[in-house]
């Protein structure tokens, strides 16, 4: 049993962006409202929600891309604004949604991985380290190391991105929709890779996704966001298997199910979506406990 201090903890985190258009009045956008979450070391949390719900904002704030408006983010108990940027930067790494845009098209895989290895693990034999790295992400050294990004498939590129995060000895990986641009048929293998990395290297993963169906492959815990607030969180099995908040139920019901055929003229889904959206935008006044560790928002 490791120590009980979570690797990352968000305490009452809020973020308000001020939009200053060239014309018209400035206005405020409340991207996050009172978010409290934590991820125990070696575990992963799935952050599920639609586009614009604030899930990527959380990821970016953990990376210190922008400061919180209020609230604190702690890394192993320490406020991240007080940690040296270099040290923090190598502990927390991001894997982006678009595996095509995240790699430099003019450089080979070797370059992408060798640079972080030389900078961050200078005492290791670089060639040996490179081999180990590719092995960790299940890529064949001989066949990939001298390839350019365009010569790799989307799934392979995403593996290179994970390898790059490992090269700097990251302890927490923020994976922002890492599979949404991949074919359904290779999504599962990338999810499997993340699960292996977690198990074998003890990595913690914040898995940001809009696809609640994939959460259970990877994450012990799931938090569902809507409109900058967390509407439900708890063990993934409970949240996905027994959703309590109307928005979580909607997400769950919208997963394509080959057994349900869409029929014309049934507006019930559209109506339901509107109602749920209206409810979920109202302020959360508290979380009530519905099961062991399973919390649902009250509006």
């Amino acid at each position: 049993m490791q120590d009980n201090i979570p690797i990352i903890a968000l305490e009452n985190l809020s973020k308000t962006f001020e939009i200053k258009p060239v014309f018209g009045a400035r206005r405020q956008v409340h991207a996050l409202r009172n978010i409290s979450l934590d991820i125990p070391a070696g575990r992963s949390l799935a952050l599920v929600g639609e586009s614009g719900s604030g899930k990527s904002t959380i990821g970016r704030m953990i990376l210190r891309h922008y400061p919180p408006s209020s609230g604190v983010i702690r890394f192993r108990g320490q406020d991240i604004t007080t940690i040296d940027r270099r040290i923090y930067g190598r502990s927390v790494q991001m894997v982006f949604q678009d595996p095509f845009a995240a790699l430099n098209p003019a450089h080979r895989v070797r370059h992408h991985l060798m640079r972080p290895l030389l900078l961050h693990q200078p005492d290791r034999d670089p060639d040996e380290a490179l081999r180990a790295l590719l092995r960790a992400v299940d890529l064949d050294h001989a066949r990939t190391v001298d390839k350019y990004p365009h010569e790799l498939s989307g799934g392979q590129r995403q593996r290179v991105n994970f390898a790059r995060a490992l090269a700097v000895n990251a302890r927490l990986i923020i994976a922002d929709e890492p599979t949404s641009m991949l074919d359904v048929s290779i999504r599962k293998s990338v999810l499997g890779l993340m699960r292996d990395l977690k198990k074998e290297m003890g990595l913690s993963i914040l898995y940001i996704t809009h696809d609640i169906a994939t959460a259970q492959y990877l994450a012990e815990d799931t938090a569902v966001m809507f409109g900058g607030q967390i509407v439900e969180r708890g063990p993934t099995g409970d949240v996905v298997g027994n959703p309590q908040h109307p928005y979580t139920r909607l997400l769950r019901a919208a997963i394509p199910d080959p057994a349900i055929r869409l029929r014309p003229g049934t507006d019930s889904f559209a109506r339901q979506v509107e109602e749920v959206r209206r409810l979920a935008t109202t302020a959360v006044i508290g979380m009530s406990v519905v099961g062991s560790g399973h919390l649902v928002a009250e509006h």
Partner: protein
Amino acid sequence: MTGLLSVKDLRVEYLTDTTPFVAVRDVSFDIADNEVLGLAGESGCGKSTIAFAAMRLQKPPAFISRGTIHFDGQDVLSMPVRDLRRWRWSECAMVFQSAMNSLNPVMTIFAQFHDMLSAHQNISRSAARARAADMLEMVGIAPDRLDSFPHQLSGGMRQRVVLALALTLRPRLLIMDEPTTALDVVVQREILQELVSLKEKLGFSVLFITHDLALMAQVSDRIAVMLRGEIVEIGTTEKVVTSPQHPYTRDLWAAMPILDAPVHEAPHAG
């Protein structure tokens, strides 16, 4: 000859420095009136190449080396360019992959409707405006959005606009190439629900291309599964879902991240 679209022994190749690469190898299929045919397969299997070839939109280095495409009895491949331009969009329209980005970012929504309408008909600006407003309303967008630019709309709304643009001339066949891949599941479901209702109302056939078999099964009447440029299995949705014959189809199903346990009380559009 049966069906609205009839593709026979279609072969599409890409010229390369060495030997041509065969992207689509002798593919045959039909789409009947009012039918939704799903075309499934992983990236690079030739799905989009078929979509483009069906509208004769393939660009060099791609070329059709053999086979025929008939649309309601007309030979699409030998159609003169003038007829082809008229035929495209008014008879057979397309919703492109990443449709969210297929709108022109520097033109208002109305300007894009007007562009398309004036290319096909002799139509006044005000009539075009009324027509565009109707179409937006039909897909559930307020007509005052006509003067918005694409970046002022959400991804789901842009997708609806693209769908409205494609249906304005009442085409008999709509080709949809990965229409909802970049959207989240709730919006995706809303749009597909919309599509199914519009199809009922207007009556058109759909060639629905996606790699998501589960999604495809929700809207298609028949499903064709492609592997490396060939159709390896084609059959009714029910058959492909419940008793897939080809090992590749079974692999595709096995690779899908589908929830294991059914959930009680989940709302669905039954």
